[in-house]
């Protein structure tokens, strides 16, 4: 618990996020790195752009000042890589929605499970927080 008057140190605040296993918190650094990747994904909110994207994905990406790594990660639908390169899941959702994937199916591709395995885990109560809270603490 943080007392209401206690001022947060911004460096400590951000550094603590790296201790959470299997999670990329969408910090300013990621937001800057992923700016055009996310803005590209956002462009898929209109039917015309979705058609153009589906017709030729690689060509569509030529119009966006993204890094080659970002372009390849999107073309490969490697969403963990997209997160590493500054993507945010709510923006990337425009890509997997255009692909006709549900949120659950797209999300499952970022785990080490198949979609049926992931679905089964969710139906049984989801992933336990036990051992998944802290890398250093191991709890």
């Amino acid at each position, binding site marked *: 618990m943080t007392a209401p008057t206690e001022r947060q140190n911004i460096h400590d605040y951000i550094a603590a996020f790296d201790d959470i*296993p299997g999670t990329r918190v969408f910090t300013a650094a990621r937001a800057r790195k992923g700016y055009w990747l996310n803005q590209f994904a956002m462009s898929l909110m209109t039917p015309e752009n979705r058609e153009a994207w589906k017709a030729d994905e690689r060509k569509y990406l030529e119009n966006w000042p993204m890094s080659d790594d970002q372009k390849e990660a999107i073309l490969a639908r490697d969403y963990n890589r997209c997160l590493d390169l500054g993507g945010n899941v709510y923006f990337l959702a425009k890509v997997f929605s255009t692909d006709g994937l549900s949120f659950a199916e797209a999300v*499952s591709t970022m785990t080490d499970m198949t979609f049926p395995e992931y679905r089964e885990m969710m139906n049984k109560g989801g992933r336990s927080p036990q051992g998944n809270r802290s890398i250093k603490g191991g709890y």
Partner: protein
Amino acid sequence: MARITAGVASSHVPLLGVAVDQGKTGDDYFGPIFAGYEWTKAWEKEEKPDVVILVYNDHASAFDMKIIPTFAIGCGERYKSADEGWGPRPVPDVEGHADLGWHIAQSLILDEFDMTIINEMDVDHGMTVPLSMMFGQPEKWPVKVVPLAVNVVTYPVPSGNRCWALGEAIARAVESFPEDLNVQIWGTGGMSHQLQGPRAGLLNREWDNKFLDMLIGDSDAARFIPHLEYLRETGSEGIEMVMWLVMRGALGKKTKCLHRHYHIPCSNTAIGHLVLEPTE
């Protein structure tokens, strides 16, 4: 005088909107989720609120990376359902209450909450799913809405304490609106869920229920939960629960629980729902 008569909290999972739109709310998967909202639907019909202040987050629909307001208030006349990548949901437009919206915006700014004012935007599942859960499928939504959008996507998001204090300031603003209006405040999003990375799928029934407990009665302990705790315990998207604190803050010192519902899972998410009444 306008008055806040109740607070409602609810998850806003997009799949719930799909279930409503495709008529699946009674099937084996969705039935138990929607059953927990039947009480509230009947209660809303009795209560007939004039306006809902709907605290929600935009999921890269109205706001992209160009502009990221921490707290934004809708002062427009109406809002359309956003195209989130699969076409807009077939739901009625959301009618705003521009007079109340502007009044709250002005009051909040004088109260030192530096709000962003929105006159035009589309609204996504963050807003339309809670409306569907509480009102079903009417031809026209039975309430006007003042949207209150909170950034819970790009860090740092506002602290729980700040969200609670914003709720307190909203209550003061509503009380000073001269028209006689029955106003509810809804906090949406949550509960535990993580939509990204190898830890995706994390749910935490125990923590979620502890959080629900904290919003009932006269405790204000929830306002001091740090972001790191939400992230560790409830997954990266569990942070949406800070929006419930705006609702709780607006209800004053003490609340009474009228209805409570919790269900795991809906897609990647734990469903939580509360109906609260201010008691003083």
